[in-house]
């Protein structure tokens, strides 16, 4: 077995990536290289029948308000959250506003990101001002139009629940749409003052997507139907990245319902009238594969070994403060520990799927996607059709968690549609999904800290080894960063070299985020060594914090023990520069009864700031007959202004349960490059009987709102691991947590 080659992958050339800064939660295309276009591109769902004062809003003469949702709804409640902002400014209940997911257009780009993407828990943080501003502008225009039409002063008019009132006179806002459409948009419109909020900060219910989701009528990607749609299943190489050398269809192309058996860039597809026919047919096909060299040479054991060996290298420095080496020398005691975390699959409930209809120079794509512009780009690369001629329809997502920021499933579907010439739906099996993910990167880290005589930290040293997400994201996103004039073939050629071309220009922030930030220590040093066996990696709910939170918060517990201090008090002593995290830590500890566990129960605590939100959790566990049970999690969250309290609670619950699955079970293993796990029997996920009671405390804050989709996750694994230590004296330094 060869060892993992890290040569040349951690050099220090840092210039090129300035054009593509990647933050923990997602991609930020800082510089647009697209050429200037002379005429504005029309909005995807524009209509002559309605007034569209802003890309976000359409108002019809009948008084209907349509909101174009610029973000993907994958369960996190962004639809209801953003509709609430529109409702507030238009002074009408959220339920009166109809919602359509926006198509691809630069007007829907996330501010500062240069593309449409839902990730990094950024939707509320980045949309709060813009959505309110656009709705407030529409409101002012409607009132101006009514004032003009009725010959009264604007100040005498009131807008309420879709109507404009002047004394006893009442008319639908629809009556003023035509006039408003011709008025110049006012500048510097004021949004509603916080004191007048009618919906923001309250539980407005039900969620605007709730009725559809309890009646089975919500349309997910897998539910899309278009005329003459054929269904496809795809047989891929057991090792991701393998190609078809040759195949034997074994006569399945003659089976009733089967139309075609075709080879595409990564496998053999069967096209049939119905999914089951396609699925059964691919099982009989024999394929001779050309295996990818690097990944096929690796298995979990040698990857772990290479990551461990890499930690003896100096690595690249990603952060320095003071003199961490000198700090260690001057410490009265020091402590070292090594932690590790495995590769993980996302396992969204809805397997990957896509519908593609190529129509000559144009195309339509239906996809559950977190980044419709990237879906468009993938379809363009595979079909040769210009991006601007490809319309992407984003459906509901049956879970995202970062998986659907990558669009291999769109590329595959487009490739099959191109070679067969018919509208195609590709549906992945669960096995396809678990074995062809963009995995949460495995990670290993060494920590060394020094304490002074009073038990205060004076030096903090962290070094992480493992693969990076960045090269895989660049493979995906390069086409969007280049001018449209660059031919798709060249884009594809360049992007497939993303690994060698781009990795090593700088340290991927997602590889080191969270390794030192939360605590005040005078001397710090964080280093990184890349070890990449070639298993593709992606954004997985809370990204780098999903492992760094476990590492840091476990190590803090070890340091508390080492210095003879209570884990809560020890943390609080090092949080003077982090008052909001300190606050949630105190709140969670107090509510959970820190220091006074019930008989037979044990508590563990952890706190992590991620994606600008602050979360602390206390896990209450018991261990009987070597069986761990997590009974209760007390969680305190500060996410600034809370738009909808119950949605924030649901997201904390969701992050905790998703993180608990990873803490207790999650482990993707590799043998000769092939992922060994395949379905929910060997890639277990938390079930109801294992799910803890969760008590969420919300901090009442007037700070700007921040996201909640991910920040509930990072503290749970260390909180449980710390509770296990309290119960057993066993310090578990690897995920998933296995009682010894």
């Amino acid at each position, binding site marked *: 077995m060869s060892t993992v080659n890290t040569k040349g992958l951690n050099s220090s050339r840092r210039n090129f990536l300035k054009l593509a800064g990647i933050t923990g939660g997602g991609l930020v295309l800082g510089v647009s290289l697209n050429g200037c276009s002379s005429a504005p591109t029309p909005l995807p769902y524009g209509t002559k029948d309605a007034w569209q004062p802003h890309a976000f809003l359409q108002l019809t003469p009948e008084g209907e308000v349509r909101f174009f949702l610029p973000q993907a709804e994958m*369960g996190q409640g962004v639809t209801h959250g953003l509709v609430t902002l529109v409702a507030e400014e238009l002074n009408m209940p959220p339920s009166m506003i109809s919602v359509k997911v926006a198509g691809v257009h630069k007007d829907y780009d996330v501010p500062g990101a240069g593309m449409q993407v839902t990730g990094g828990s950024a939707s509320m943080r980045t949309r709060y001002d813009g959505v309110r501003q656009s709705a407030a502008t529409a409101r002012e225009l409607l009132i101006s139009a009514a004032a003009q039409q009725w010959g009264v002063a604007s100040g005498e008019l009131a807008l309420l629940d879709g109507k404009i009132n002047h004394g006893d006179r009442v008319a639908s806002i629809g009556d003023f749409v035509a006039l408003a459409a011709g008025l110049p948009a006012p500048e510097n419109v004021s949004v509603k003052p916080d004191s007048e909020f009618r919906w923001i900060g309250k539980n407005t219910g039900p969620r605007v*997507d709730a009725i559809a989701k309890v009646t089975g009528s919500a349309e997910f990607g897998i539910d899309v139907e278009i005329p003459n749609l054929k269904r496809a299943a795809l047989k891929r190489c057991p090792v991701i990245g393998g190609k078809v050398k040759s195949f034997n269809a074994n006569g399945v192309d003659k089976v009733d319902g089967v139309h075609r058996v075709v080879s595409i860039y990564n496998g053999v597809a069967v096209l049939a009238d119905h999914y089951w026919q396609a699925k059964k047919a691919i099982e009989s096909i024999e394929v001779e594969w050309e295996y990818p060299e690097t990944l096929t040479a690796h298995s979990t054991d040698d990857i772990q070994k290479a990551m461990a060996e890499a930690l003896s290298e100096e690595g690249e420095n990603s952060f320095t403060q003071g003199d961490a080496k000198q700090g260690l020398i001057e410490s009265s005691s020091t402590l070292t520990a090594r932690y590790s975390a495995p590769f993980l699959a996302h396992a969204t409930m809805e397997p990957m799927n896509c519908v593609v209809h190529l129509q000559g120079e144009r195309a339509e794509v239906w996809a559950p996607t977190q980044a419709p512009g990237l879906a468009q780009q993938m379809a363009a690369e595979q079909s040769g059709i210009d991006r601007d001629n490809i319309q992407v329809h984003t459906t509901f997502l049956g879970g995202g968690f970062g998986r659907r920021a990558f669009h291999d499933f769109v590329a595959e579907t487009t490739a099959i549609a191109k070679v067969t010439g018919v509208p195609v739906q590709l549906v992945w099996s669960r096995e396809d999904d678990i074995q062809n993910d963009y995995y949460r990167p495995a990670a290993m880290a060494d920590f060394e800290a020094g304490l002074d005589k009073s038990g205060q930290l004076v030096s903090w040293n962290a070094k992480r080894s493992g693969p990076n997400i960045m090269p895989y994201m660049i493979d995906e996103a390069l086409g969007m960063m280049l001018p449209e004039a660059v031919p798709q073939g060249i884009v594809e050629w360049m992007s497939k070299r993303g690994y060698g071309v781009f990795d090593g220009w700088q340290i991927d922030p997602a590889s080191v985020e969270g390794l030192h930030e939360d605590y005040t220590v005078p001397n710090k040093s964080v280093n990184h060594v890349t070890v990449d066996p070639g298993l593709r990696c992606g954004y997985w709910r809370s990204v780098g914090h999903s492992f760094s939170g476990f590492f840091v918060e476990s190590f803090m517990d070890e340091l508390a023990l080492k210095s003879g201090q209570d884990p809560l008090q020890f943390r609080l002593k090092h949080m003077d520069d982090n008052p909001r995290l300190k606050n949630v830590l105190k709140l969670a500890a107090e509510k959970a009864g820190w220091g006074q566990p019930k008989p037979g129960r044990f508590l563990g605590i952890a706190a992590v700031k991620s994606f600008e939100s602050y979360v602390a959790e206390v896990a209450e566990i018991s261990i009987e007959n070597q069986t761990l049970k997590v009974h209760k999690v007390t969680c305190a969250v500060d996410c600034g202004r809370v738009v909808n309290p119950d949605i924030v609670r649901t997201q904390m619950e969701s992050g905790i349960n998703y993180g608990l*699955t990873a803490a207790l079970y999650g482990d993707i293993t590799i043998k000769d490059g092939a992922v060994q796990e395949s379905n929910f029997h060997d890639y277990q996920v938390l*079930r*109801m009987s294992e799910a803890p009671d969760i008590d969420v405390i919300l901090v009442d804050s007037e700070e700007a709102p921040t996201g909640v989709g991910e920040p509930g996750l990072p503290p749970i694994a260390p909180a449980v691991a710390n509770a296990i230590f309290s119960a057993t004296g066993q310090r578990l330094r690897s995920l998933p947590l296995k009682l010894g």
Partner: protein
Amino acid sequence: MISFRLNGETVSTDVPADTPLLWVVREHFDLKGSKFGCGKGLCGACTMHFNGSAIRTCVMPVAAVADGEVTTVEGIGQADNLHIVQQAWIKHNVPQCGYCQSGQIMSAVALLEQNPNPSDGDIESFMSGNICRCGTYSRIKQAIHSAAEAKSSGVILFDPLAPEEATA
């Protein structure tokens, strides 16, 4: 030709007998509420009722339901006529991504038919075949308790026509 009753109507199909009921219902009868999640009966997203019992239809050959009564989520309640379990789901703000919820609801309805007043333990054991990756489990449990109470008292848990309220 295989015939069965689907949400109260008689339907028939000439698909091969081993075709899973899930795909017949989704693609031949165009009812998309029941979802594909694992294909192995491990996750419950495909749950329907067969003669009143919850079954995993991704592994149930259509021949096995011949002449029987099949009910899907579309058959238990609609937007203007919600089942008490669907109302409870809304009241407790259960669905997040929503993909597993048709299956969860069908399991919950079957549970309450068999056991009108289930304990936490009864609920956990009956519902443990239904996976939710958004982690809505504690709300599902509360919603089932609410639905059980409402069923016996006749209380409406959610009325889509009632005016919207905002509560702190």
